[in-house]
């Protein structure tokens, strides 16, 4: 899928040349030339890229604003990013195969989106707060959430298995777009507290259509909330390509709400790191929200329940393989740093160990106690819940009696 395909549809009825066709003062053209407006709508939008697909560092006028944010990055830090991506991918693959083995009910793979997630995740500070969707396994990794904790909801033992306050990493949110408002509110709270941390809210290209996301844009702009909206445009919302959600590039959505939007190469971990840092710094400085669109690709199925062969050609995926985020950074590490084979070999071993640990932990994950149904429905209790819990207990006990009476029969 090319950028052109997210451009405006061809007119429904033939557009007869007529006076007044283009409004001299329409928003797209205010204070600029018509050519500029055309450019915005039809041309390939500019993409912040710091590494070519081959791993060569790009520096030019377009990168100047972001270069400072990665200017003093060390080879060790670069290797750290590489390690994050490799381990995340490994964890993800492990989860996919655990689903195939029946250990998980479902899995939403992030394959292909490692750079977007690791770059943005590593841009956050410890006191920042992150609101993910359901696919941010790489961001969770950066936040220090034990990856096995992510598996609880996919296994069906809980609806979110970690304490969001430990790592400032909120629970996965399944209702599309909702969390962008929570992020905005949280950011409003940060501003009230006079703190200088920031919030980052993840969402997808499909989510951009939800009213909640637009409301989050409105609230964050009006209250100048320190929040970064990080949209991973992976080109697909289940079976729907991005052109079913918008006819112009998504990052442009922000401008109409009064804050900047920028498109970054979502397969370039360095660019994602730099742009997200830039946006988070804006937030910290009190300059309000930013929309970052990470242009990337969902290499796998939407989830393990999905069958993408029904709706997309595999050559699209193959084309994106050439832009693989991990290979790209490896190219850079090999050509521009002193990274040696030992690093890659060690990482491979670490990766194996992680896979093993994940398998073991998942297989040992106990089913929840039956009474967990009633736990945490309320913080302060609720008379009916107490009543139902008691009835449930009596009912369960009646089987215990039967079991005792009937021995092994039941």
């Amino acid at each position, binding site marked *: 899928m090319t950028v052109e395909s997210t451009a405006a549809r061809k007119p429904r009825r033939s557009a007869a040349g007529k006076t007044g066709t283009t409004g001299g003062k329409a928003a797209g053209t205010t204070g600029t030339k018509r050519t500029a407006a055309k450019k915005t709508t039809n041309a390939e939008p500019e993409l912040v890229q710091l590494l070519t697909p081959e791993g060569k560092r790009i520096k030019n006028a377009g990168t100047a604003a972001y270069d400072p944010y990665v200017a003093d990055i060390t080879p060790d830090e670069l290797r750290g990013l590489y390690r994050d991506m490799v381990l995340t991918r490994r964890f993800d693959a492990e989860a996919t195969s655990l689903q195939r083995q029946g250990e998980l*009910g*479902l899995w939403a793979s992030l394959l292909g989106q490692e750079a977007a997630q690791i770059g943005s995740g590593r841009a956050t500070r410890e006191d920042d707060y992150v609101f993910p969707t359901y696919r941010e396994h790489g961001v969770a990794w950066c936040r220090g959430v034990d990856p096995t904790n992510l598996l*609880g*909801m*996919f*296994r*069906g*033992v*809980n*609806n979110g298995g970690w304490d969001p306050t430990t790592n400032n990493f909120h629970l996965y949110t*399944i*209702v*599309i777009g909702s969390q962008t408002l929570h992020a905005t509110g949280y950011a409003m709270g940060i501003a009230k507290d006079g703190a200088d941390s920031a919030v980052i809210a993840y969402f997808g290209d*499909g*989510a951009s*259509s*939800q*009213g*909640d996301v637009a409301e989050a844009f409105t609230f964050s702009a009006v209250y100048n909330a320190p929040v970064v909206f990080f949209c991973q445009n992976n080109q697909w*919302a*289940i*079976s*729907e390509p991005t052109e*079913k*959600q918008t006819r112009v590039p998504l990052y442009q959505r922000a401008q109409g709400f009064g804050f900047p939007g920028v498109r970054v190469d979502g397969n370039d971990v360095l660019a994602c790191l730099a742009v997200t840092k830039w946006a988070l710094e804006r937030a910290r400085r009190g300059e309000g929200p930013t929309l970052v669109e990470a242009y990337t690709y969902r290499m796998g199925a939407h989830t393990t*329940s*999905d069958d993408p062969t*029904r*709706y997309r050609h595999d050559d699209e995926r193959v084309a994106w393989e050439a832009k693989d985020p991990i290979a790209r950074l490896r190219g850079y590490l090999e050509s521009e740093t002193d990274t040696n084979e030992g690093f890659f070999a060690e990482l491979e071993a670490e990766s194996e160990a992680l896979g093993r640990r994940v398998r073991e932990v998942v297989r040992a994950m106990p*089913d*929840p106690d*039956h009474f*967990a*149904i*009633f736990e945490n*429905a309320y913080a302060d209790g*609720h008379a*009916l*819940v107490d009543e*139902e819990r008691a009835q*449930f207990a009596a*009912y369960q006990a*009646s*089987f215990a009696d039967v079991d005792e009476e009937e021995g092994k029969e039941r």
Partner: protein
Amino acid sequence: MTTQTAAQTAGQSAVKSLALAKAINESLRKALETDPKVLVMGEDVGKLGGVFRVTDGLQKDFGEDRVIDTPLAESGIVGTAIGLALRGYRPVVEIQFDGFVFPAYDQIVTQLAKMHARALGKVKLPVVVRIPYGGGIGAVEHHSESPEALFAHVAGLKVVSPSNASDAYWMMQQAIQSDDPVIFFEPKRRYWDKAEVNPEAIPGPLHKARVVREGTDLTLAAYGPMVKLCQEVADAAAEEGKALEVLDLRSVSPLDFDSIQTSVEKTGRLVVVHEAPVFFGSGAEIAARITERCFYHLEAPVLRVGGYHAPYPPARLEEEYLPGLDRVLDAVDRSLAY
């Protein structure tokens, strides 16, 4: 408009065994064929054919203009469906899962339900909102809920739920033909259950309950996914010598109180079963009204079996949360003990 062959069309006139999902698919196909104003809209209903394949093949045969992949925005889907209905279309809208209907709730409650009355009858909104609902499929959060009570309380809506493929086929036909908005709850855990469907014989009106099994000792009333369970309960009870009558209510708004009353006047006992939480659920309305209607016939209070007053639990707990054979039998025993 359609690319179906004559042979295929002829094939439709025979009774056939269809899975519930496939029956809805054929019903939609029939409606798209018969009425050029019928549209199918929703997320992923096109090439993918919906996440449950209920709309499989429809876009291929009827085109993107009639089977429409929408942006990911439920309020927008229902809101534009209302506009299309005002223009004379009959949109059949898919909400991907029960838990995702809430962004559309405002449009459904304040607009879809009320516009006919607001316009003093001058406009009609023949919109069907399809919602795969209920649990039992081991899904993650928001994918297993039963929110039908939240729609039944709202005047202006009709709420139905088929329990089997034949009803699914026919109730969908009738829902599309209805000039009122219909919330069509599809029992997703029964999507793969097969039954005979005769596309030529209407089994009865949309809002009429059906006696699925006759009995004299107690009435079990259910709809959608719980009908099958109640039949199993009746089987089990029969082994113990109890003759349970099983009612498939089919419609939640209106509720066919007449049929329930008839049954309860015979059996004197009623247990209502649904997946939705008991508190403020359908069972409450049924219990209240049937108690009023059958006060002197009831030998026991109407009992309700349903979900607990807690968020739908993670999949590994749903067996405990949902009504199952033993829990319904337990209620039957409690009722008979009066």
